[in-house]
């Protein structure tokens, strides 16, 4: 039947054809089950109503369903495989351990800061040795070395 034949019925593609779409879009598992014909009649009706109403979803699924496998390039393969490496796999840790880690994480930073500060004070001869005091000491040494007139 050609497109002309539908003109007496008006624009069929614009509406839902009187079918009430499901409130929620079916999830991927439900759609796949529908494709494979493994849904019960009532569930199948619900998915089909959604496909009637949702043109973008229907066309995307139709395209995907008819797609031929396409081999991966070497680069695509390496990138995908790199998503799961022994180091990348997160291991489940207990909650107390998580909070302990959180608490202890700043400790090395603070320790380093204290060490740096102590080194600074040591090199500067302590807190009391301000620059003007050191200059006065130096001047006294110089003047003490001069012969008295």
């Amino acid at each position, binding site marked *: 039947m050609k497109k002309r034949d539908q003109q007496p019925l008006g624009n069929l593609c614009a509406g839902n054809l009187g079918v009430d779409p499901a409130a929620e879009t079916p999830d991927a598992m439900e759609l796949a089950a529908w494709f494979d014909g493994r849904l019960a009649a009532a569930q199948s009706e619900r998915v089909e109503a959604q496909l009637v109403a949702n043109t973008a979803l229907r066309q995307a699924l139709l395209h995907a369903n008819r797609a031929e496998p396409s081999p991966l390039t070497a680069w695509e393969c390496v990138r995908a495989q790199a998503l*799961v490496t022994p180091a990348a796999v997160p291991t489940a840790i207990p909650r107390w351990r998580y909070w302990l880690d959180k608490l202890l994480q700043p400790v090395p930073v603070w320790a380093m800061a204290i060490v740096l500060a102590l080194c600074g004070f040591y090199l500067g001869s302590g807190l009391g040795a301000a620059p003007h005091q050191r200059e006065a000491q130096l001047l006294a040494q110089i003047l003490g070395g001069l012969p008295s007139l």
Partner: protein
Amino acid sequence: MPELETISLARVCRGDPAAWRDFVDAAGPVLRGAAQRLLVPAGRGDDVAEVLQEIFLRLVRNEFRLLKRYDPQRAKLRTWLGVIAASATVDWLRRLPPVHEALSELPEYRLPAAPAPADPDPPPVEIPAGLLSARQALVLKLLYCDDRDVSEVAGLLRIEPQTVRSLRHKAISRLRKALIGDA
């Protein structure tokens, strides 16, 4: 290359790198084919590698949460992966910014030759709720809005072509009766 149906998803979901490599080798072509099928007509064929990585990322994210949802009792892995790939690709296309091109900057061959004649679409048909079953409506949509032929629709719905013709006939008869009358 390992067969898709022989891959141990339990091992993949435990984060076994060897099992994941097998999964990528077996599932990658299915995912890539589905993504490519949607991207090329949209003029985004160059995005295949990025979309493919996005799909794999979806499967891995949150300790394989999506992959763990797959239920082999309900659908084949290949079918499910096709749906996942379609969904991710549609999301990708939706996220793309719209392309704006100034008419003055377009080369002449890309300009429309003449304004299209005024041929407004007929108004949408008001169809009483429940007149058609979901399956009848889907058959009409596939045949007349998506331009699929009877054998394609039959293959998709896993029914005989004769059943598709019968569903179409019944649907159109009901529509005629409701909209035009018995004349």
